[in-house]
C-alpha cells in the first residue's frame, strides 16, 4: 500500500500508523443522557467492505495526522488529506 501524504508525497505503508474509522463523530455533550451516542462512538463500527475513511498517523515521516480514503477489500488507496482539512470539510458539511 502506498499512501500519498499531503506533506511528504507518496510513501509506503510501513511509515504509517493506523488508528481506524474516521467517520464516527465524538458526541459534544458529557450529559449521561447521551450515553447511547457515546456507546455508539466508542464501540460500534460500520466496518465497511469497500470504501473507507480512516485516521492515519504519518509516524515515520512528517508526524501529521491524515485521513486516508482506501478500499478495504482491494487495498486501493484513493487519496489522503490532513486531519485538519478533513475536520474543516466535515464541519462545513454539517453546517
Amino acid at each position, binding site marked *: 500500500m502506498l499512501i500519498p501524504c499531503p506533506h511528504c508525497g507518496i510513501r509506503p505503508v510501513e*511509515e504509517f500508523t493506523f488508528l481506524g474509522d474516521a467517520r464516527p463523530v465524538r458526541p459534544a455533550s458529557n450529559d449521561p443522557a447521551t450515553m447511547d451516542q457515546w456507546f455508539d462512538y466508542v464501540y460500534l463500527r460500520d466496518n465497511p467492505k469497500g470504501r473507507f475513511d480512516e485516521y492515519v498517523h504519518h509516524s515515520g*515521516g*512528517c508526524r501529521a495526522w491524515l485521513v486516508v480514503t482506501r478500499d478495504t477489500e482491494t487495498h486501493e488507496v484513493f487519496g489522503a488529506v490532513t486531519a485538519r482539512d478533513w475536520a474543516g470539510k466535515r464541519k462545513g458539511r454539517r453546517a
Partner: protein
Amino acid sequence: MKAKPAAEPVFPRVSPLADVALQGRFGADRGAPGVEFRVRHPLSILTVIARKGQSAAVADALASLKGTTVQWAGPDQYFVLAEGRGEGALYREAKAMLDDKASVSEQSHGRVVIRVAGAKARNVLAKGTPVDLHPDAFPVGMSAMTQMAHVGVHLTRVAEDAYDLSVFRGFAESLWEWITEQAEEFGYQVK
C-alpha cells in the same frame, strides 16, 4: 540585594558516535571510496514549530538568522543548524527572536547529523529510504522525514552528491552500523 541567579550549567556536547565512527578506509578497497561519512560534530541544532497562523512570519524570521541552515521538518516545523556556535547561543538567539511566534527547542545534544557524500551516496541511501532521490524529485536543499532500518531519519540533500542524515542520538549507533554495512560494497571513508 537580590542574589545573583545561578549560572545555567553547561554540558559539553558529546557525540554519540565518538567511539563508533572510527576514521579510516573500510569495505571494498579498490579505487576511490564510493562513499564518505563524516559526523558533523559539534553542531547546534534547534527544532522550531510555528504557532497557529504564524507560519509565514516564522519562515521570514528564520531566513534572517545569520550563519544558519534552515531545513523543513514537517508542516510548519524546521530544523535550524549552525556550526561553530557556543553552547546554547543559537537557542537563546532564536528563542529571543521567535518567542511569540514559535516553540523553539534545543536539540544539539539530542540529535546527531551524519554527512554522507560521494558518487555512491545515493545508492547507499536508496537501500533504506522510500524517498525518491532523483535530483528532479529531491533537489539540493530539500528535506524529507523518513525511516531507514526502522530508525526515524531526517534527510536533506546538501549538494548534488551529498546528504545530511539527522537522527536521535539513541538510534545513532544502530543507524551507523546499518548504513556503513550498506556502503561496504562501494568502499567507504570515515572522516
